[in-house]
């Protein structure tokens, strides 16, 4: 299923429904595994739902199609959200999700492209996704290809210098088929980003590296769909979408609390989280 840009309320309702389904299954999966990174999963969920159910030209039947859009999850620790999304999009069986991080499961704590169809590169150490995305975009640029590359980074991850090496190259080469989405939940593992090492003024920084930058509510499916479908924002420039998000979004007791970076909910907490999310 591929939805088209500028679609109506029914499309946005579908994205919302998918996002809720991803959240519910991801929470269940993390509780089953006794492991995972639920806070960042939940902040990225609406972005993933919008990409996979509204933007990306990908086909689960042909995950290696040379003309596919590339999506790279640079914040590889949020593999749980990616697997759940890939399962609902048909890349892997939904009933495989319960094997997440179990011995010999292909659903490792960080994604492995050689095991899971739809994964483009193995991430986990931070600051790796954008250089690979830049390389893919250069490959497409050499060929004059039409496919696009999307890289989702965490915000704390932007403290890794490799991102800015890659950003310099992207700006220099005018990679307008490349879009970086920053999951700007303002938290990293140990603390708020701005208390750790300041990232603001983040938009100005990306602009200075040659990107066309826009900021959106990272939980507003209609806004995400509009901006991600329309990329590039400016011909001849790579795009940066700063998606303002809430870590732990959708579960009140997790929201904006650094400890939910990789804390695992109890069964009782799972029940109340699922109740909050509803069945939509």
């Amino acid at each position: 299923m591929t939805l088209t840009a500028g679609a109506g309320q029914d499309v946005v309702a579908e994205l919302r429904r998918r996002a809720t389904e991803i959240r519910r299954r991801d929470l269940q999966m993390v509780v089953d595994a006794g492991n995972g990174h639920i806070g960042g999963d939940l902040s990225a969920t609406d972005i993933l739902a919008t990409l996979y159910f509204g933007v990306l030209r990908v086909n689960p039947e042909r995950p290696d199609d040379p003309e596919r859009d590339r999506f790279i999850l640079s914040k590889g620790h949020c593999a749980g959200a990616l697997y759940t999304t890939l399962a609902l999009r048909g890349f892997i069986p939904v009933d495989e999700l319960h094997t997440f991080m179990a011995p010999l499961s292909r659903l490792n704590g960080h994604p492995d492209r050689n095991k899971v169809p739809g994964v483009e590169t193995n991430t986990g150490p931070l600051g790796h996704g954008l250089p690979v995305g830049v390389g893919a975009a250069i490959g497409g640029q050499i060929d004059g290809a039409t496919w696009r590359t999307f890289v989702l980074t965490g915000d704390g991850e932007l403290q890794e210098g490799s991102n800015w090496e890659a950003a310099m190259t992207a700006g220099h080469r005018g990679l307008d088929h490349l879009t970086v989405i920053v999951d700007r939940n303002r938290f990293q593992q140990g603390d708020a980003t701005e208390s750790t090492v300041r990232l603001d003024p983040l938009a100005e920084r990306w602009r200075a590296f040659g990107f066309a930058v826009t900021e959106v509510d990272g939980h507003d499916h209609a806004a995400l769909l509009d901006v991600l479908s329309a990329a590039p924002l400016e011909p001849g420039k790579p795009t940066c979408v700063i998606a303002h998000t809430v870590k732990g979004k959708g579960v009140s007791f997790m929201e904006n609390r650094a400890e939910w970076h990789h804390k695992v909910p109890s069964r009782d907490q799972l029940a109340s989280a699922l109740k909050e999310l509803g069945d939509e």
Partner: protein
Amino acid sequence: MSESQLHDCRHAFSDMLVELGEEDERIVVVNNDSVGSSNTGPFRKRFPNRLVNVGIAEQNLVGVGAGLANAGKIPFVCSASCFLTGRALEQIKADVAYSNANVKLVGISSGMAYGALGPTHHSIEDFAWTRAIANLTVVAPADPEETRQAVRVAAHTRGPIFLRLSRMGVPVLYDASYNFEIGKASRLRDGADVTIIANGVLVTRALAAAELLATHGVQARVLNMATVRPLDRDAIVAAARETGAIVTVEEHTVFGGLGGAVAEVIVQTVPVPMRLLGVPGVFAPTGGAEWLLEHFRLTPEGIRDAALELQQSRAHV
């Protein structure tokens, strides 16, 4: 040996890269402001659109290589070996080897080729670092013909590879009848008393050492172990069985390199006495590349003396 008989293998590399580029438009080159030092200028001149210079940014260099492979290209990622392996090791591990990206990593001016520029520019840890990584082939060619063939094989073999090249002049060892194969040692001389295992720029010195040993009545087998991973276990075990002693010679620290790799096989198969020659776990003093090889006795005489000492120690057991 006169300078005119010595060859900088970067030229063989560069020529083959252009040849491969003509044959296959998927071949691209990625540089970190290293077009000159990696001798990729001819490729850039012929295929300006297929040379990607990411600037002085090694993490990005290797990540971009992995991304180009994702886009269907066959990238040759070329950089001074010290920076390629030292600065971008995690990208080599995760983006290339673990991801099984079809990337060809080319470490130029490896070992102590940068001479008096000093230990920051020496790459005497790269075998240890790269051969510890799963799913990464590690090859150090010894002469222009082996370089040409290794580059061609790398392009035609799907998967990650690290080619360790030098800029030090070496004489011709092979002609076009040679057939380089990944994981196969090449026996350059036979003998029954001891085996000298070397690779890269030191193969020629190992052969010269064998000639010196012959004057002492010691017949040395000489193996060019161009592939450090996967290692030619059969050739190593045969050498142990048939010659009873092994000397390894490498332009690398003696910790974790070719000697270590050979020793790992030997102690678990046919334990025989060994001597591991290389840089003895120190940062080199100031000196040119040739001078440093002399300093660390990585010379025909130094190899000869180690082999003779090994023979004597066996006689006293």
